[in-house]
């Protein structure tokens, strides 16, 4: 039987990402990530079973992309530190390197496949000797020691080693959305509007900018402020609603941001059930 590659369902996130980029369907840094996510979801739906590993890895990559993109979209300080810029390239290069590696081995596998195919057209003789030689041959099992036999059983029945959960990609969370809401409330003028850019003046960490953005979103959700953005990627304007229109801030709902959102931790608690948000 000839060797065949199975129909190209995407195996893992690199495959998919590579495919998407090379087909120029998406430009990861310029076009909305939503498209990648949509395409991914469409692919996942076509899979016979959802592979948790792939999905997880994809989440990691998507998160990296979101982070990179967020950094770009959020109003930056003019004096962007060189270190940070370099870090950004590093992230990007890491991803690029992985994608290139993935592509390299994809192509190597293709050649390997055709070599295997070619080789399978030359059928080796494995018949062995004819009689009377056949009965002269010692039995192969006679040369197998009992402990080697045991070892073979152990290999054959061995469980795969415990999987190691890598968490080094999870950034420690230092900023709390709850704190940021308070800060934003303090910064909001009583009347008139303010640019989001101004709400983040003097903020050093990108992460803090992101958290402050989340705080603004929360305030918008709760009906404390209104948001305006006249064009894509344009200036984001935050306008506090008049006292009459304003709804009282529901501090309890902030609980979903997590009491321990500011914990300094680089571990993920895998035992916690993940809540489904509507």
């Amino acid at each position: 039987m000839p060797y065949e590659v199975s129909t190209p369902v995407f195996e893992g996130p690199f495959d998919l990402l590579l495919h998407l980029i090379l087909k120029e369907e998406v430009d990861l840094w310029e076009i909305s990530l939503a498209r990648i996510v949509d395409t991914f979801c469409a692919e996942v739906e076509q899979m016979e079973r959802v592979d948790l590993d792939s999905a997880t890895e994809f989440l990691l990559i998507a998160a990296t992309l979101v982070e990179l993109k967020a950094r770009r979209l959020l109003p930056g300080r003019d004096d962007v530190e060189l270190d940070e810029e370099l870090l950004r390239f590093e992230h990007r290069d890491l991803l690029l390197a992985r994608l290139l590696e993935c592509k390299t081995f994809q192509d190597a596998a293709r050649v390997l496949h055709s070599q295997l195919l070619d080789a399978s057209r030359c059928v080796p003789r494995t018949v062995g000797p004819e009689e009377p030689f056949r009965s002269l041959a010692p039995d192969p099992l006679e040369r197998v020691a009992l402990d080697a036999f045991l070892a073979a059983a152990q290999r054959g029945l061995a469980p795969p080693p415990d999987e190691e959960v890598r968490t080094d990609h999870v950034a420690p969370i230092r900023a709390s959305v709850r704190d940021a809401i308070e800060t934003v409330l303090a910064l909001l003028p009583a009347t008139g509007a303010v640019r989001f850019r101004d709400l983040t003046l003097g903020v050093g960490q990108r992460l803090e900018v992101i958290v402050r953005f989340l705080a603004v979103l929360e305030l918008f959700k709760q009906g404390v402020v209104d948001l305006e953005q006249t064009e894509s990627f344009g200036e984001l304007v935050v306008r506090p609603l008049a006292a009459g229109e304003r709804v009282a801030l529901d501090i309890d709902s902030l609980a979903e941001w997590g009491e321990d959102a500011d914990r300094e931790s680089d571990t993920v608690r895998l035992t916690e059930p993940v809540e489904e948000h509507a």
Partner: protein
Amino acid sequence: MSQTSERELESRRAIEAIVLAATEPVHVTVLAQLLELPVARVQEICDQLAGEYARDGRGFTIARVAGGYRFQTHPDAFPYVERFVLEGQTARLSGPALETLAIIAYKQPVSRAQLSAIRGVNVDATLKTLVARGYVEEVGHEPTLGNPALFGTSRAFLERLGIDTLDQLPALADFVPEASIVEALERG
């Protein structure tokens, strides 16, 4: 003319290749059918080939055995082949075959499906080899749909391994098989 000799070359090649790769003597009618040639013509070609091998002093010939053709070694090379065979160079169990045999030995009786599930690959070819070698035999049938065969090790297996009973196999001590294997065995 050139057309004929091309066809001629193809037929000769095909016969040589088929007989070389086949595990049993290939019956002359099978060759005739495959090549779409009369039986007599196939015999003619085989005779011709044998003649050429003899003329060229080859270490093998194509011989007619039990109505079929097979390659066999030239009698003059007997001492070399004998030494080669006696040294056990022709008899080796591949790693995967040994592992499958070990699984059968420890988990018998097992079905083909259980073995495939544990190994993660289709075990048909390996199982065939093990049965042909006489290490493994059918020991019963499962009482489930289709009554799949159950396999176990043979008396010859014990003898070759140099033990009297299966109890003398070293214990798979402190060895807990992975859940998926337990499942495969339970599911049957």
